[in-house]
């Protein structure tokens, strides 16, 4: 494509900026909401980098675009966030250096990675590491041992911190160059697809383990009492969690807002539990 390879020492992300971005990554979920996710937090996180990239007053137009780009919808397992943000930073840098760079690819890459990575990250951090850490912590804490909570925090946060630090580092290093090429020759598509497959599988497994709805409906016919859950289990295990999740997903695809869905769920929960369905 182009031969203007940026040498390592010319990189905008010097040690100091790296450190700033790293620490700011912890404030990622600061303004989290259903409309923008952690988009504001993502912008806040790379602000020092953007400042370094466009330090002068005359860079205002580019800086403003970078700011606006930076706060697009973004939602991801927090521990994983630094990785795509490192990539984004590196692409911002390339965007400045290369004339033929398409800035819209920055958010395209962020958006295509955040989903799959969250699928994997959530089940890894929420589903696996947290549960193991809790298992060990609970064992100790039951006996009143203060090592319980302490080990719990350590076991969870060591991988958490490592993922953050190396995620940012390798994300930035890998970043622009590689991703840009991968984007162009179709490899990124494959990587994203693979991550998406893995993510989907993880989310499928999580659906079963986190949505625990079971019907308690019983109906009588003649002298027999029927237990609906048993009949459903015979047809397909876990059919309620799967249906409820897919129905919710369907509402989201139909652009029903999360707030409305929550309201709906509140109503449904009360009505159905009053009717002894759940």
């Amino acid at each position, binding site marked *: 494509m182009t031969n203007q390879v940026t040498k390592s020492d010319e990189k905008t992300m010097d040690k100091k900026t790296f450190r700033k971005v790293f620490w700011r990554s912890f404030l990622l979920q600061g303004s989290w909401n259903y409309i923008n996710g952690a988009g504001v937090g993502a912008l806040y996180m790379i602000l020092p980098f953007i400042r370094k990239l466009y330090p002068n007053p005359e860079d205002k137009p580019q800086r403003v675009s970078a700011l606006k780009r930076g706060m697009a919808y973004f939602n991801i397992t927090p521990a994983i966030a630094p990785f795509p943000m490192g990539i984004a930073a590196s692409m911002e840098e390339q965007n400045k250096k290369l004339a033929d760079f398409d800035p819209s690819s920055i958010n395209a890459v962020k958006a295509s990675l955040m989903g799959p990575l969250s699928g994997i990250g959530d089940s890894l951090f929420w589903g696996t590491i947290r549960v193991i850490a809790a298992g060990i912590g609970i064992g100790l804490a039951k006996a009143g041992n203060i090592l319980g909570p302490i080990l719990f925090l350590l076991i969870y946060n060591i991988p958490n911190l490592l993922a953050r630090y190396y995620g940012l580092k390798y994300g930035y290093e890998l970043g622009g160059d590689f991703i840009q090429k991968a984007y162009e020759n*179709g490899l990124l598509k494959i990587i994203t697809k693979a991550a998406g497959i893995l993510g989907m599988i993880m989310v499928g497994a999580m659906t079963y383990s986190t949505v625990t709805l079971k019907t308690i409906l019983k109906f009588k016919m003649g002298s027999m009492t029927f237990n609906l859950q048993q009949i459903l289990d015979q047809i397909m295990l876990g059919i309620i969690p799967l249906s409820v999740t897919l129905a919710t997903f369907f509402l989201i695809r139909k652009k029903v807002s999360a707030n409305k869905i929550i309201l709906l769920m509140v109503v449904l929960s009360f009505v159905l539990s009053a009717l002894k369905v759940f």
Partner: protein
Amino acid sequence: MLVPALWVALIMFVGNFSDCGMSDPMIRRPLVMSMLVGLALGDLRTGIMMGASLEVIFLGISGIGGAMPSDSMTGSIFGTAFAILNHQGVAVALSLAVPISLLAVFINQLVIFVRGLLLTFFEKYAEEDKPKAIERLQYLSIVGGPLVYALIGFLGIYLGSGSISALVHSIPQVIMNGLTVLGQMLPALGIALLLNMIYEKGNMIYLLLGFLLSCYLKLPIIAVALIGIILAVILSSIDKNILDVKNMTTSKKAAATEQNDDQDSLEEDFFND
């Protein structure tokens, strides 16, 4: 009750802040919160042990996709505090923690709602090239939520377990049942939001696969993950092989005819198929 109320307010602040301002390092989990309450109220050992019991109950609760099925933090803090202050046992702590955590879900939703309102300002500041203003508002937003929690913590303890527990027990069973069902249903929202991020035409089938593996084969999540990795690697190496042939074809095409917009159409292919 002033001193304990202030302590609990602080713990509520820290717990909620750890989510927004520290990327949720699990400080807000019962195991840690109850310990801190115990420490503050002078009975560390009891706090730790109650934390263990509460953690067991709330283990299934996660916050995927931002949906919180039950506010285990608030429930645990109040439950532990009241039990310690009134010299009562784990049973009482649990009997308060569970309903409170269900009720407190609404506080969280409110905070999130308000944060959504701030978006207009953030957008304005970006447009006007005011990074400093963005930072300031972000800080405000980060401490805002925790302050609300702190206030609730303070009031709850200051008013006393009597009134809180009166409140809790005055709630009719039908409401509590409804809240329980809500707590089982809300995770579906989290999963669905997550799904919405991952979803692409044609990959829904893998959701089903993961579901089956965990549901019919009873595989633990780590085994599902490993199988997922294996499958993803196999499939992407096949895709890679096909891509290579495709690129081979394309390059030949480019060589044969003149350099036209094939490249673009190729790109499009990648993003459509």
